[in-house]
């Protein structure tokens, strides 16, 4: 009896989570994959014809947007690291008693709708707005200069919106570092730069790794920033998927694009994890 229970209980315990995963992840993904090889339209219905050409057509038509999404995602992630690491470092080591206040301030923008925050950048970056207007009338910028409706604005918006996802995991990693390790390094005649490079940076790498995952994946799939801040050549793959489902009502193409995006991101993430696997990162840290 006891043995039987011991065998069953773990399965019972994972049942709620497992069901959740099956109902809300596995089934939708299967429907998505099935849909991606169908043909038809809304009025006559879609039928399963195993039309794998949907994938080839989708790639032919929209590979530019795929590449652009990965490029924007990469640039925004790197910018997030460059901007976010110093912030996390400062809060972790110089924040003192006010650490939680600073973290709260970092999260404060999240209390405002994501879309509203992005729209406010539209006003800020407007051709004759509060930023560019004075610079133009002072003759510093040419009259036709613009930021809005360019790739720069999109990458800027992405960086702005996802920065906290980079800062928080780095902060957590830095916070856990024993300050005495840094003191010990300096006692052993390491300069401050060397102590950072040999002690702090390696120990914070797991946080950085997590930050890259948390930032790059949503950024590459984002569609709000390109729609609000972008111009004619800045469409990302998320915008295309949205249009295929809602405007064009070409569900198979939309499904094929969604699955391709998912596959590309998963493969990318797994090879990234392989190359910089968490174990190795910890090893680096232990050195």
């Amino acid at each position, binding site marked *: 009896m006891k043995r039987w229970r011991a065998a069953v209980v773990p399965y019972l315990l994972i049942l709620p989570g497992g069901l959740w995963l099956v109902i809300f992840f596995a089934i*939708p993904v299967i*429907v*998505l994959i*099935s*849909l991606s090889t*169908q043909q*038809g*339209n*809304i*009025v*006559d*219905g*879609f*039928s*399963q014809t195993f039309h794998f050409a949907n994938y080839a057509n989708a790639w032919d*038509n*929209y590979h530019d*947007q795929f590449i652009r999404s990965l490029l924007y995602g990469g640039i925004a992630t790197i910018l997030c690291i460059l901007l976010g690491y110093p912030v996390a470092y400062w809060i972790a080591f110089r924040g003192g008693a006010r650490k939680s206040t600073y973290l709260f301030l970092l999260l404060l923008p999240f209390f405002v*709708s*994501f*879309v*509203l925050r992005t*729209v406010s950048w*539209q*006003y800020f970056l*407007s*051709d*004759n*707005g509060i930023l560019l207007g004075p610079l133009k009338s002072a003759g510093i910028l040419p009259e*036709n200069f*613009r930021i*809005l*409706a360019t790739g720069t604005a999109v990458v800027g918006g992405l960086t702005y919106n996802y920065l906290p996802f980079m800062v928080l995991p780095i902060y957590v990693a830095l916070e856990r570092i024993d300050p005495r390790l840094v003191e010990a390094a300096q006692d052993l005649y390491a300069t401050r730069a060397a102590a950072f490079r040999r002690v702090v940076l390696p120990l914070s790498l797991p946080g950085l790794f997590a930050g890259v995952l948390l930032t790059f994946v949503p950024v590459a799939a984002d*569609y*709000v920033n390109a*729609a*609000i801040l*972008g*111009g*004619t*050549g*800045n*469409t990302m793959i*998320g*915008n*295309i*998927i*949205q*249009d295929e*489902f*809602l*405007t*064009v*009502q*070409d*569900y198979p193409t*939309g*499904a094929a694009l969604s699955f391709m995006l998912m596959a590309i991101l998963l493969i990318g993430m797994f090879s990234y994890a392989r190359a910089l696997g968490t174990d190795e990162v910890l090893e680096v840290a232990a050195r």
Partner: protein
Amino acid sequence: MNARYSRRAALQLGGLSAAALTAAACGVQGAAKQQPAAQAESAADKFWKAQKPTGTVTFANWALYIDPDHQTLKDFTAKTGIKVTYDEVIQDDSSFFAKIHPQLASGQSTGYDIMVITDGLEFSELVALGEVIPLDQSMLTNFHKYAGAAYQHRSFDPGNVYSVPWASGSTGIAWNPKYVKTPPTSINDLWNPAYAGHVGMMSDVQEIANFGLFKIGVNPETSTQKDWEAAAATLKQQRSAGIVRQYYDQSYINALSKGDVWITMAWSGDIFQQNLSAGTNLQFTVPKEGGTIWTDNMMIPKYAANPVAAMQLIDWYYQPRMAATLTEAINYITPVPAVQDIIKSDAASAKGSDKATLEAVATSPLVWLSAADYARLKNYVPITSKNQATFYGIFQPVVAG
């Protein structure tokens, strides 16, 4: 087509989840029930005979598309005793269709008794799918008495079997006179290199297709696939020459007011409302080559719980007094011609800023189109399930960039 501010925002948040639901729900099914008008009518007779009056009605409409204090609805309740639930749930046709179609396809009620749908792709799909109830013509007494002739004979719904208009509007060219000194008259002004980087075009495929067709001198209503390809080519050329700044949804109106966009495709009522509410001096015209006229229509979705009350409310808005109150609030084209005189007399008896506003509405060339305007206004390209894929395959790449 005339969504109000920030609808794109809401759409984008809800968009992908709604799309995923749609995909899951209608992946395989989709029984088309194309009903010839005559057959639909006899089925309608049977349906309406079986209906009993009910005490409530639920109305799904677009945002900012009714008198702000809902006095017209309160009057309806006072007169009939029918309680109205008014929901501003429609941000645009495509996302609303994506929401209700899976429900209707699986045999569920949407919860709405009246909905307002533009005469585009989704309109014809709802009809083709049998997802709307043919109206009870015997209950449309005010409509038949007061609606203008043009609104009783519409190519997209002959005989008003499934719909009657809520309001109409036109798509033309708007400009900010601060940046555009010579008033545009031609569609070619949207292709003018002098405005490069400051021209706004609409992201809506049906809207942009019409303007591409006007540019090459073709009437959208009778256009062929060859015309579509030529129109798409000229639109792509406009984009690659750097003339187009962005393909806009409703947000074009802000871009135009701020000066990011100098000249743009625009909806007539938006420009009127923006000038009224923000004090801007934006201008609007229907280009001489042609503009688009669209109509938002009241329809009754299948499985509606209160169809009789819905019919009463639909016909309620065809009383000239109600139609006038509505037009004074929304500034779009009314299907009831008698309204103009009522607004004029309202203006005569009003005072202060109300007076100026009402006078502006009563005489606005955007609300009261001239015969010459009407002659230049064309409907959307008629899209059916047959040519839908071709049409979108040609025009979607223009805005997808």
